[in-house]
């Protein structure tokens, strides 16, 4: 067996925290190798070491049996390693072609027509199509993902690292991605897939390596593990059982959206007279593909997007023209879609972030001032709720891994007496037990009298955790028929607008 990549005894510390502790990984040439583990298990850190973006404190990197030390990513790229990071490396201000060739332009003057020719050849090989002169900001998530793959090919990468590549993709786009990857592997490439989604591991990978808490747990051929056994290896214990959905007692309407009309950024009507009622104590899931109007609906409910007509009431109180601040004071809480952009301020400390949006509420604000002791206490509560791993509440938010940030943001929204919880992908970037924990907490608050509206692009997640699911398509909500209320296929059809 020949190994394309061997990482031997890698350790890496950030301050006092050991992100990686003597981790080894051997990846067989010409296979897809899965790397799985909870948030903060060290998957991304390990991959960044291989990619030269981080220097390990100790340990050895071998490519094709030759030891190498990569000073930076440039070095690693030159040795045939390519990486697609979680948030994609596409720079929106550049054109598709410029993104493709950035860092490997082939000389001080770019020969644009030659570059386009080679770009087209690569695209054709993968069955993709690109308008190379268009700005990269026009790309859909699936398009950006395809461009990332071509970027690896452009650099002649032999070892391809993909960090959570399907997090933003629809099921059919994910299938297409794996078809591409299999093609590349057949041609001799080696793929390391970092993922949370176990079905991807079972369906597409040959070997799987499990990390937990910065340590290597084990490596197995995928044929020797099951979904269940793998999940238990990842969490290091038994799994949280999915909740039993009980019928909601009728305690009246908590959220009443009546015929609202809302425009999108291009000034087109995106919600055209949308109606939705959420009962008190109910968790309602909105299923739909990205861009169906979920974002605008949430912004309108939060009061940051103008409602042109129609009305919104919370607990029989009309809030249509209220400011966001007033709505938050009334008990509206948000788990934002994009935690980097909307959920946290990364340069601020955890403690400061803990009160974002809640700063006017008791007990954080006392008369005109923010009470620092109460803020500190509150931040501790928020951090403990979902056991966020952190190195001190005074540390900046950006020192937390993505999953830990999500835990923190979810806890912040749920802990301070919510009346209506708006959760946009509340489990984004969370592992299995983390997801279960967040939904369990939402349910607990709903049992105590709140209600929740949840948007997710993962229909299975909604089916497990919500009382009721409605499908959103082109700004319209559709109720599945009562007998098909939990029918995956039926809801899937409504999501894409089929009858």
């Amino acid at each position, binding site marked *: 067996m020949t190994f394309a990549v061997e990482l031997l005894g890698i350790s890496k510390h950030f301050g006092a925290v050991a992100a990686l502790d003597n981790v080894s990984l051997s990846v067989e040439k010409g296979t897809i190798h899965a790397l799985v583990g909870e948030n903060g298990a060290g998957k991304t850190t390990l991959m960044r070491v291989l*990619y030269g*973006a981080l220097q390990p404190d100790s340990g050895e990197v071998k490519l094709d049996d030759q030891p190498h030390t990569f000073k*930076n*990513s*440039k070095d690693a*790229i*030159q040795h045939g390693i390519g*990486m697609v*990071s979680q948030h994609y*490396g*596409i*720079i*929106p*201000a*550049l054109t598709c072609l*410029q993104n493709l*060739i*950035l*860092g*490997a*332009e082939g*000389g*001080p*003057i*770019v020969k*644009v027509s030659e570059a386009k020719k080679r770009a087209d050849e690569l695209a054709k090989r993968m069955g993709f199509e690109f308008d190379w002169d268009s700005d990269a900001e026009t790309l859909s998530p699936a398009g950006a993902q395809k461009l990332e793959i071509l*970027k690896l090919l452009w650099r002649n990468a032999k070892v391809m690292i993909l960090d959570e590549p399907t997090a933003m993709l629809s099921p059919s786009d994910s299938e297409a991605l794996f078809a591409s990857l299999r093609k590349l592997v057949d041609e001799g490439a080696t793929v390391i897939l970092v993922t949370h989604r176990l079905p991807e591991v079972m369906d597409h990978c040959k070997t799987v390596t499990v990390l937990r808490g910065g340590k290597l747990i084990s490596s197995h051929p995928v044929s020797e593990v099951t979904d269940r056994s793998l999940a238990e290896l990842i969490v290091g214990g038994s799994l949280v059982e999915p909740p039993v959905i009980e019928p909601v007692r009728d305690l009246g309407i908590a959220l009443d959206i009546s015929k609202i009309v809302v425009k999108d950024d291009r000034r087109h009507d995106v919600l055209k007279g949308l109606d939705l009622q959420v009962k008190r104590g109910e968790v309602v899931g909105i299923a739909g593909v990205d861009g169906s109007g979920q974002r605008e609906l949430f912004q309108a409910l939060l009061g940051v997007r103008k409602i042109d007509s129609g009305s919104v009431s919370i607990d029989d109180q009309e809030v249509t023209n209220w400011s966001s601040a007033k709505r938050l004071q009334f008990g509206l809480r948000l788990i934002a879609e994009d935690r980097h952009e909307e959920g946290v301020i990364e340069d601020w400390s955890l403690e400061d972030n803990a009160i974002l949006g809640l700063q006017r509420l008791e007990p954080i604000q006392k008369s005109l001032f923010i009470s620092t002791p109460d803020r500190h206490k509150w931040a501790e509560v928020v951090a403990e709720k979902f056991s966020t791993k952190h190195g001190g509440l005074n540390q900046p938010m950006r020192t937390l891994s993505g999953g830990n940030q999500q835990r923190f943001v979810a806890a912040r929204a749920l802990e301070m007496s919510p009346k209506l919880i708006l959760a946009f992908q509340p489990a984004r970037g969370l592992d299995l037990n983390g997801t279960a924990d967040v939904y369990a907490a939402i349910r607990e608050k709903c049992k105590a009298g709140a209600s929740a509206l949840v948007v997710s692009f993962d229909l299975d997640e909604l089916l497990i955790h919500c009382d009721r699911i409605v499908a959103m398509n082109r700004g319209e909500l559709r109720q599945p028929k009562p007998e098909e209320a939990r029918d995956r296929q039926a809801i899937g059809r409504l999501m894409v607008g089929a009858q």
Partner: protein
Amino acid sequence: MIDVLRLALIMATPLCLAAMGGYTSERGGITNIGLEGLMLMSACVTALCSAHFGALGGVACGVLSSTLLSILHWLSTQKYRIDHVISGMAINAIAAGGTNFLYGKFSDPNNSGKLVVMPTNYFVVAAIIVPFLLWVNSKYGRFGIRLMAAGSDPDKARLMGTEPITIRFWGLTATGIFCGLAGSMLVSEVQAFTDNMTAGRGYIALAALILGGWRPIPTFVACLGFGFLSALRVQLDGTQIFGANIPAVWASLPYIVTIVALAGFFGRNRTPAGIGKL
């Protein structure tokens, strides 16, 4: 009318050169309010050195001085991570005080005549060519693509194997050269150096850059516009329109236009996304 147009071109030249200096700095992600200081330093050194080394030598020394000052901005913002605006203000302060001191100390008090200077036409030609070169560079140049990448998202640019810090060094070197030329142009125009002779042109250049959406050609056009406004003011000075003098407020027009532009009345915001990020 021809006079006004010719004057407009002359007035636009230092603005345009300085704005292009701002472009190579800000497009790469470094906020630069020090354009004013760079111009002033170059103007002073050009005037001082022209007396000893001739016209070309003077320009060379002027450009060198502003380039060194520009690299100081790179050093403080990239190596020592000082806030870009503070560093820029320091550059302006150094230039304002430094030129006053240098000129007082080294200028020849006996030589009250005019300096030997480069013809202004050279600078005018440069001010027309440079924007086009930078535009071509942004389309076809490796440096242009990498500069844009560094200014849009330095982290992603790094992951693609480029080094934003190095790219920005060359960007700021170019800033020094272009602002240096702009300063020399001012000296050529009046064949002398006077205290604070830039008179806010660095900021107007910045305004043109913002108005042009950090793109070379539109910025060039904005500079022409500002140049035309200034020329008109000079031509109309003292004459009366509708029975009133040209109001002093005219001089602040570029700033008003910039505020309107920044408020988003002229299309979308094009500020480089990674500006100020390391």
